[in-house]
């Protein structure tokens, strides 16, 4: 999942759609993000490659919209509503997620278990 400058990034992604919940004046999604190109990647507990500066899900509020939509802790967010999240600062990522005019966010997330599942299925059922 690390990126080599100049080469395209490939990953197996899952589409997750979260409905924002209105709480008073705010629209909340119910999870916390960490990471970004202006942050220290070495302290990220969820990344495999400690130089990965992507945006990761660090916490999920139980019972919130993110949990309902099957977002999990440790997921790396690749896109939010079409906006790229692999090379953004922490604040830019926060802004893209908390736009007041949008009520739905469509995330493309990747996680290790997805890669494993694909490999496993490829191995078990070789293409004929």
């Amino acid at each position, binding site marked *: 999942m690390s990126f080599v400058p100049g080469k395209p990034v490939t990953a197996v992604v899952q589409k997750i759609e979260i409905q924002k919940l209105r709480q008073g004046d705010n629209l*909340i*999604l119910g*999870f*916390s*993000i*960490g990471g970004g190109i*202006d*942050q*220290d990647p*070495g*302290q*990220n507990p969820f990344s495999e490659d400690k130089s990965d500066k992507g945006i990761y899900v*660090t*916490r999920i*509020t139980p019972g919130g919209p993110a949990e309902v939509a099957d977002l999990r802790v440790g997921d790396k967010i690749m896109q939010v509503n079409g906006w790229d999240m692999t090379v953004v600062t*922490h604040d830019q990522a*926060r802004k893209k*997620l*908390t736009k007041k005019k949008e009520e739905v966010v469509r995330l493309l997330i990747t996680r290790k278990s997805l890669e494993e599942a694909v490999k496993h299925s490829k191995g078990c059922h070789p293409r004929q």
Partner: protein
Amino acid sequence: YDISADKGERSRDRHKSRSKDSRSEKSVTINTPPAEPLLGDSSVRGEQVQDDNWGETTTAVTGTSEHSLSQEDIVRITKDLEDSVGLDCRRYVTRTIAVILGLLVFLTPLAFLVLPHILWPEKLQSCGTACEGLYISVAFKLLILLLAVWALFFRPARAGLPRVFVFRVLLAVLVFLFVVSYWLFYSVRILDSQDDNYQGIVQYAVSLVDALLFIHYLAVVLLELRQLQPCFSVCVTRSSDGETRHYNLGQLSIQRAALAIIEHYYCDFPIHNPALLSASKSRAAKHLAGLKVYNVDGPGNNAAAGMAQSQSRAMIAAAARRRDTSHNELYYEEAEHERRVRKRRARLVVAVEEAFTHIKRMQEEEPKKAPGDVMDPREAAQAIFPSMARALQKYLRTTKQQHCHSMESIQQHLAFCITNNMTPKAFLESYLTPGPTLQYGKDHWLGRRWTLISEASVTNGLKDGSVFVLKCVDFSLVVTAKKIPYIQMSEEYIDPKSHKFVLRLQSETSV
């Protein structure tokens, strides 16, 4: 509460020592009960005959009687005579040689200048301006030489070393040869031929004085400067209790290094206290006393050496086999002693502080008190001493220092502290920690003689790995010298602008 705790511990100790003794009686014994233990002075002197009744029938030959002198005494007396006469003789000889050489050196230039005037005054050219200028130069250079020689050579001798000081002898020989060769030249070329060029003669005298000043410079470099740069690190260990210090010395001969080390010893090492060593000696004696070895084979079996060897082997084997619990005893004894010392020390500190509050320095402005009330420091010390005397004496007894301090010396020290406005803590400092030897009364260090024991000649220089021993009556100092390694240093330049820092963040935002 305290007293009962003490008693309890004391009785525990007694019980422990009793049980220890009963355990030590179960030693390795290999029979014949009526025989005397062969581990005694008799076996050391190598008696061959092992008669069981020897104690009743032998006549003992003792070392000395009251009216006879033994061989050792005679040797000691002659050595003392030799030493005292030898040293004084050598000191006088050295002094006379130095004085003769000094006179020779100073009077020679003056003689060179004066002799032509005496011997051939008519032929002599008169002294012109340049020549008279040289007179002044000779005078001042001689004065400088006089002061320099006084500063370097005529200092009070601080030690008597076993062998001559090699550099000084070399310099004396050099100066002597130098002056003699100048005299030779002078007598042959000037006196015999009665040279009339007086300016040349004066210049000759000036050149002599210049050369003497340069020899004095050589003397300063050889005697004083050469050993200033540290070259060796010496480790000095006292044999009685293991106190160790390290010093840096330059390139010195072994005897000069020994002198420097003894001077450092008087300043750095705490005083040698034989009372502190008695505990380990008694433990060692207990080790030996617990074992008795009997020779089962009959008399006349082995040579004396073989017997001694087999005895010691049997002892070592037995000691290895039995279970020794003296380490336990040592641990508890030391812990108990530590507690006792600390308690006594606390009592002492409180007593001294209280005593010091009883006297106060009288201010000048105060209305004059009656003469009976005003005391000088000695009387003040005597007045407050009794209140702290008991606590101090008990503390000194516990730390086994009581023989180092007499009552007179303690009162003197107290008067000294009072005069100089010292606090009770400052007064106590010299009793709480053992100080260097010179701090104590004269009988601890006056008349101490040191013997230098060395395998290499004592006028050789120090080398890496030299070992020598400085023996005194009660203990010896073992000295090992190691060369200070060659230091290779390199530099690394750091640009002051290169110190830059970045923040390492890891924020977490909830959305």
